[in-house]
């Protein structure tokens, strides 16, 4: 577990490097390694600047934010160099309702039908332990799909898969692999019968 802020920032800096490089190589094949590194560093400088200027929302999804800022910086750089590589924007999904919002709405809807989903606060502790044990690339795929609501094609780009279809089949496999131990743990804790 990281013990200070610099360590946490460092962990993110290292963790995001590979997905970001994958995205850049996929979208801008003519960018050189040094240029991508330059853009990557500028993202973190920009984040700190934007915090100082109060430009960052409270509920920012950082994975998508880093990718979007990086994508825009790369576009700016390519325009400056008079090269066009990527025609598609990077979908950041800021305006879509989050999965948690949807789950809350479903919970309310089902409560009216006398079906209760969240009736035990201990579930979070049990789940936290199981989710923390999820191996890669499952942890990233599930986070990007459910939390960031990133399209499958974009997930394929950042984790270096060939196609959205491969990501889809791996996602099902990952959910299945995660749900089995979660279900067993929830049963052991008496949260589900």
């Amino acid at each position, binding site marked *: 577990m990281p013990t200070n802020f610099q360590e946490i*920032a460092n962990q993110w800096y290292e963790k995001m490097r590979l997905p970001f490089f994958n995205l850049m190589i996929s979208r801008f094949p003519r960018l050189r390694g040094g240029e991508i590194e330059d853009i990557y560093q500028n993202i973190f400088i920009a984040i700190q600047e934007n915090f100082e200027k109060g430009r960052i929302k409270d509920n920012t999804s950082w994975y998508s934010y880093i990718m979007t800022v990086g994508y825009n910086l790369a576009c700016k750089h390519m325009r400056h160099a008079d090269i066009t590589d990527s025609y598609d924007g990077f979908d950041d999904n800021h305006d879509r309702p989050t999965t948690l919002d949807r789950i809350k709405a479903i919970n309310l809807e*089902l409560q009216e039908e006398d079906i209760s989903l969240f009736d035990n606060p201990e579930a979070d502790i049990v789940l936290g332990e199981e989710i923390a044990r999820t191996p890669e690339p499952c942890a990233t795929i599930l986070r990007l799909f459910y939390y960031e609501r990133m399209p499958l094609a974009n997930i394929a780009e950042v984790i270096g898969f060939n196609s959205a279809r491969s990501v889809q089949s791996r996602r099902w496999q990952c959910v299945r692999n995660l749900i089995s131990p979660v279900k067993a743990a929830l049963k052991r804790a008496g949260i589900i019968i």
Partner: protein
Amino acid sequence: MQNIQQFDRFIYGELSPEERKKFISRLKTDKDFATDFKAYILTVAGICKEAQLDDIEFATAMKNITPEQLLEIMGYRKHSPFPAQTDDAPLSGARFDLAVGFGESAPVFNASASSKIQEERSKIDEERSRIDEERSKIEEELPSLHGRLIYFEAKKISETEAPATKKSGSSTKTRSAKTWSAKTWIWQASSIAAVVLIAFIVVLDFEKRGRENVDNVVFSFYADDLSAVSRGGDDTSIGSDGQSFTLEAYTSDPAKAIPVLIKKYESVDSPQDIAIYGKLLALAYIKAHDRRNARIVLQTIIDKLSAYSPDWDDTISECRTILNAVG
């Protein structure tokens, strides 16, 4: 699997009103279905909450670290992209304020770049300096070698020519000069050939070491995924009949595991086992710098898993990537 698809469609509002109605009534009547859905929805909510906590943690960290601490994380730029900054100095606080923008100088050195790459770089640098040292030693020794060669050649000529010189005067002198010139040319050519040969050997050695470094990087990169093999159980051993070993033992000395892995790989037939044991075997060969066998194993994995496409496409593509790296 089908349930998960249905659950996804339900939470993202992709079911038709009729399907939705059916879904809710099934939740009331089918107890197993309801339990599965509850586990699913708690898992998805858990994933989102964990990610949210991660995000909050990162935001707090970025708010609280100083620009200098961030630069420490990123490393310094050998070639600063900002104008009027000395190339080798780290970015100062004032320059940091200039923030986003690209300069003319493209190559950027990042000291905190992945530690593996840095390790490899330092190894290569060490190797280069060793080669330079060897080269300078050879160059130092060359003049003295030439000197000795000239002495022996001259002595040999004087010994063979001595009786003839006594017999015939000026004609012998001319022949002796011609021979001397030919001999000089021969030793010059042989010296050049020796230097070329030494350089060739040094380059070959350097290339071999380079290939081995690539093998080690490929192994350590893909061997990290091995932790995934033990997910969901305690069975981290491979092999049987007293030949079993743990994944930790495999990671420390994979070459020893090759015979057991060959047997295991030949006996399995499920795509998952083919993928796991095939990759373990191929990586063990790579670690042992046996690229030929590694390529054969990787090709057989691709051939075997092609029958299970598209579910195993990502594994096939991973194998192709490794194949390209060691090709």
